[in-house]
């Protein structure tokens, strides 16, 4: 995707600063950023959360979120200064000449209107074309975005269309007025790897076809490597460095960039295979379970041993979390049983003894919603210790402090804080401490790192690793992220549509020959090579051609 660079840039930003209101003062979100984008060029903006990527992306539309303001600098789009332009003038640009593709298409499509009506709204309101013409155009774009049944998909409501399809429909909608510039704000972050590929390919194709300039915002380096001509790295509102994609990947200048590149290097030592006669901590045996008459799980079975991590991998809807619900007794199975250290557990958690409940704990994906916002850390961690172990007074206080030290948070500084006074990574650490407080043998980690930045996630994985060897814990690690699996798993269970497709020790599952689905999953994980997507699509097209002959 080589941009046809002309002399006058389409978009320039000079010393752009944006502030956000926190309590009674203004703090910088973006601090004096310079940016230049030519027609047909794709710029990747990359950084961790809080880097100011989205704020910068929205600023390219002359838009700031409520509670934010542009405090300095200028944004010039095709000769128009967006910092001084009237609201009406900016409205005429938005949607028509600068379009936006949001992170979660499911949330960003209006649930009350059909896709087609939302598509037509832009062209009709901006006076680009009439409704009938816009409809015809929509079908054409839906076809180019490789949406199924392009003639009719527009007459569905957003809830009737899958996430990956919605994301493509949103890209088509952004294209509806043939804008000069599109802002892609993490368009594939919420998608499964296999879906992500389709969306990335479709976005790249359409941006190429219409020679549209784009700003591609993401925290995923491998993704941005496929999409961008140039990459700009941001950290806490400041620019770290900017370079051509290939140069940036081959020879990053700054330490911070190198640390981002190196992030996926964590790998724990492979544990020796368990002895043949060892009793597993948890044994999931022939579980068939579901809601009502619909079976979500079919004959699922695997063992988890002490000091071992079993990664359960699969796309959304594969039954990973339902398996966790069955193990914890939240969803009694139709068939099969859960055996804990040789003892069959009652299927319903209400029939399990307090000690049985204590032995299996959970850590959740969204630490934000899993911690009671009204409770101080002392109570969050103290309650399980009090309830399961009967600790009181000084003993309890000492235990809470112990736990905080274990998760590498200074007890004095954190014991009386509220969850809202912690960062995302710290909240997740509190989630871990809460699970540890019960002194369990077994912990289910449900996508514990997927809401976190890579550097922070790395820290959490290392911590879990350390705790495992210290307390002989057995982990069940639910994730859709294969990089995480490579980093932490001893054994891997690949699930699809409620069935176990493949399971075994990590080296065995990750080494060829693969099951076709495992192969698809593995090959869909983006790699840090700018040609990866092109090569992959080529390979798959070839394979399909061979299969047809």
């Amino acid at each position, binding site marked *: 995707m080589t941009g046809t660079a002309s002399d006058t840039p389409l978009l320039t930003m000079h010393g752009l600063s944006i502030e956000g209101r926190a309590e009674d003062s203004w703090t910088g979100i973006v601090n004096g950023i310079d940016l230049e984008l030519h027609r047909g060029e794709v710029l990747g903006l990359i950084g961790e959360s809080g880097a100011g990527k989205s704020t910068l992306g929205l600023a390219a539309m002359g838009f700031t979120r409520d509670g934010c303001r542009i405090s300095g600098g200028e944004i010039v789009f095709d000769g128009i200064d967006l910092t001084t332009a009237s609201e009406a003038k900016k409205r005429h640009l938005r949607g028509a000449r600068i379009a936006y593709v949001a992170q979660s298409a499911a949330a960003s499509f209006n649930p009350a209107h059909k896709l087609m009506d939302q598509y037509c*709204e832009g062209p009709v309101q901006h006076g680009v074309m009439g409704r009938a013409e816009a409809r015809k155009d929509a079908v054409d774009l839906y076809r180019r975005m490789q949406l199924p049944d392009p003639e009719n998909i527009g007459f569905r409501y957003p809830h009737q269309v899958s996430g990956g399809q919605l994301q493509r429909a949103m890209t088509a909608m952004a294209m509806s007025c043939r804008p000069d510039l599109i802002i892609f704000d993490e368009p594939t972050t919420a998608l499964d790897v296999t879906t992500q590929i389709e969306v990335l390919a479709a976005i790249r194709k359409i941006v190429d076809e219409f020679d549209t300039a784009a700003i591609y915002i993401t925290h995923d380096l491998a993704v941005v490597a496929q999409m961008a001509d140039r990459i700009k790295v941001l950290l806490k509102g400041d620019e770290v460095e900017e370079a051509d994609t290939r140069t940036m990947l081959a020879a990053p200048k700054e330490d911070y960039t190198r640390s981002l590149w190196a992030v996926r290097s964590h790998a724990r030592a492979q544990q020796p295979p368990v002895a043949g006669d060892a009793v597993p901590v948890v044994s999931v045996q022939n579980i068939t379970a579901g809601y009502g008459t619909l079976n979500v799980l079919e004959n699922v079975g695997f063992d988890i041993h002490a000091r071992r991590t079993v990664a359960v991998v699969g796309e959304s809807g594969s039954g990973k979390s339902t398996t966790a619900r069955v193990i914890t007794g939240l969803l009694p199975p139709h068939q099969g049983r859960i055996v804990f250290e040789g003892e069959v557990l009652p299927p319903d958690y209400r029939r399990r003894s307090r000690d049985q409940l204590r032995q299996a704990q959970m850590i959740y994906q969204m630490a934000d919603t899993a911690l009671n916002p009204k409770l101080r850390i002392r109570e969050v961690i103290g309650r399980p210790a009090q309830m399961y172990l009967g600790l009181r007074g000084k003993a309890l206080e000492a235990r809470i402090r112990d736990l905080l030290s274990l998760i590498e948070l200074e007890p004095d500084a954190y014991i009386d804080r509220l969850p809202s006074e912690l960062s995302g990574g710290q909240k997740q650490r509190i989630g871990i401490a809460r699970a540890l407080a019960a002194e369990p043998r077994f912990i289910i980690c449900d996508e514990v790192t997927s809401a976190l930045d890579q550097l922070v996630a790395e820290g959490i994985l290392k911590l879990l690793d350390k705790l495992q060897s210290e307390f002989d814990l057995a982990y069940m690690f639910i994730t859709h992220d294969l990089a995480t699996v490579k980093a932490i798993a001893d054994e891997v269970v690949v699930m699809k549509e409620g069935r176990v497709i493949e399971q075994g020790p990590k080296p065995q599952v990750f080494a060829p020959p693969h099951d076709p689905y495992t192969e698809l999953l593995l090959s869909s994980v983006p790699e840090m090579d700018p040609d990866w997507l092109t090569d992959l699509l080529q390979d798959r097209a070839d394979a399909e051609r061979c299969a047809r002959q």
Partner: protein
Amino acid sequence: MSHILIMIAKRLAFGVLTLFFVSILIFGATELLPGDFAEEFLGQSATPETVAAIRRQLGLNLPMHIRYGEWLGILPGWTSMNAEGVLTGRCIEAGIATADAPAYCGVLQGDFGNSLSNRRPVAELLGTRLGNTLFLALYAAAIAVPLSLMLGILAALFRNSVFDRVVNASALTSISFPEFFVAYILIFWLAGMGGLFPSMATIRPATDFAEKLYLAFLPALTLTLVVTAHMMRMTRAAIINLLASPYIEMARLKGMSPIRVIVRHALPNALAPIINVIALNLAYLITGVVVVEVVFVYPGLGQLMVDSVAARDMPVVQAVALIFAAAYVLLNLTADVLATLSNPRLVKRG
């Protein structure tokens, strides 16, 4: 769509059940009141003999469950005996049954009986009153619903502005005053000083429509002032609640005008709570307007209900109570159906 039809059928069935319980409740509650129709009717001139005679004549001497059964139409309506020892009762009086040929003539047969006070059929008595009440309720709703929706939308559009504050403050003020106070203030300004509108809204069946609108303007305006605040504030709150949604930001980033963002993108998703508040207020307009009726001498159901309770005129009290209960049941059902229809996720599943 079929699941909506099933829902309507279920809810109607439950509605009928509700009406049944309401009728028992009202019957029982009226029994608990001191005195009965005979004593209230005779007043000062009551002697034990006359009271007993009237009771016998009207069947009030019978046990409560029998009278209820007669009223409902599950017991034959000829269970009482007059002074001469001849069988009598509602159905015999109505000429449906004779002492030899029993018949049922209760609510289940569509007969609400006769008023005890003036012997006229309840249906006839209620007919014009119900029409008047519905007319006033619809009149007030026709002003209040569009007005509060519009004010709510504008308040959401110009939230936290002077306009928003003024609208909120005046709506809250008008809801905080007692209804009769608002009514008298309006009479003082619009009827007394200006003489623009009549202070007495005594409409008759013969009054033509335009005249009715003119006569009932002040009561309708009073009711509008009373119910607007609720609906307007709910509209505003429901819309503002959605303004932080990603799809609202998307609409703004598509370059849509602020009014379009609110009317086309926020409002359709805010309809469910708004419809529910509107339904509750409409129900109030039908059932809760007795004070306004009294002030403006408006011949509606509220006035009739109060009079009938005072006279212990059971058939009328029962009939009015059932109408009120049915209004709540039907309006809530309508609200739920409309709220469901406004949400494509519930209409088109999967």
